[in-house]
């Protein structure tokens, strides 16, 4: 886990949540800006997962390894699930659905960082 990456992920996630809220406020469906931001978020999350996997293989052991792995896998899937579900919503609420997924990602990466830094012995 890298703290700068966690910060970057949080910033992009908050931007995505804001874009989602904006499209809901303007009574519009999600557009290209949402797609590009979601793609960027996903890219950063995959990079984070790769960094974490390399460190795990290298011998880093978070105390709550099972929880850490469950979170790591879930957080990578969240933007994809959020986007797929938002795309099938034909109203202005699509942006908020995507925003919920983005905010969940922002919370989860900080929780992941917590779990990462507590190691056994």
């Amino acid at each position, binding site marked *: 886990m890298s703290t700068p990456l966690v910060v970057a992920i949080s910033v992009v996630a908050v931007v995505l949540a804001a874009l989602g809220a904006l499209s809901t406020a303007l009574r519009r469906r999600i557009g290209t800006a949402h797609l590009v931001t979601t793609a960027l978020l996903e890219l950063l999350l995959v990079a984070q997962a790769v960094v974490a996997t390399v460190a795990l293989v290298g011998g880093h052991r978070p105390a709550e390894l099972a929880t850490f792995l*469950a979170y790591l896998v*879930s957080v990578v899937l969240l933007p994809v699930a959020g986007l797929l579900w938002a795309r099938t919503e034909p109203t202005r*609420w699509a942006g908020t659905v995507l925003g*919920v997924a983005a905010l969940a990602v922002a919370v989860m990466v900080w929780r992941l960082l917590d779990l990462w830094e507590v190691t056994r012995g």
Partner: protein
Amino acid sequence: MAEDTAQGPGRVLVAVYAVFALAAGARAAVQLAVQFDEAPLAYLLSALAAVVYLAATVGLARGGRGGRRTAVVACSVELLGVLVVGTLSVVDTAAFPDDTVWSGYGRGYGFIPLVLPVLGLLWLRHQAEEAAEQG
């Protein structure tokens, strides 16, 4: 429409419920598998919370009469759970050494567990009224 409850604002509600089902489920699975002996009551409640969130998610996502009924039961159990467990965790801290989703009225999760069932029940009542109007 059968899928009424999962349209518009309802879809946002389902998204939040899905996130909570995921978070509570992952947490409960790990707690039960790894450290069940430490606080059986708290961990069993975590698992119950996860099941309730999952039921609410499915009920809201499916919609229709059956879906709404499932969701009403799940949201009611959830509201009851967060109030009872919240109170117990404040009164008897020894039984709840580890936080569950419902400890301290959902304090660890921004009090969302307390607000969510209320929003869910309001939304379901609104949906039931619309369904009744349409006959």
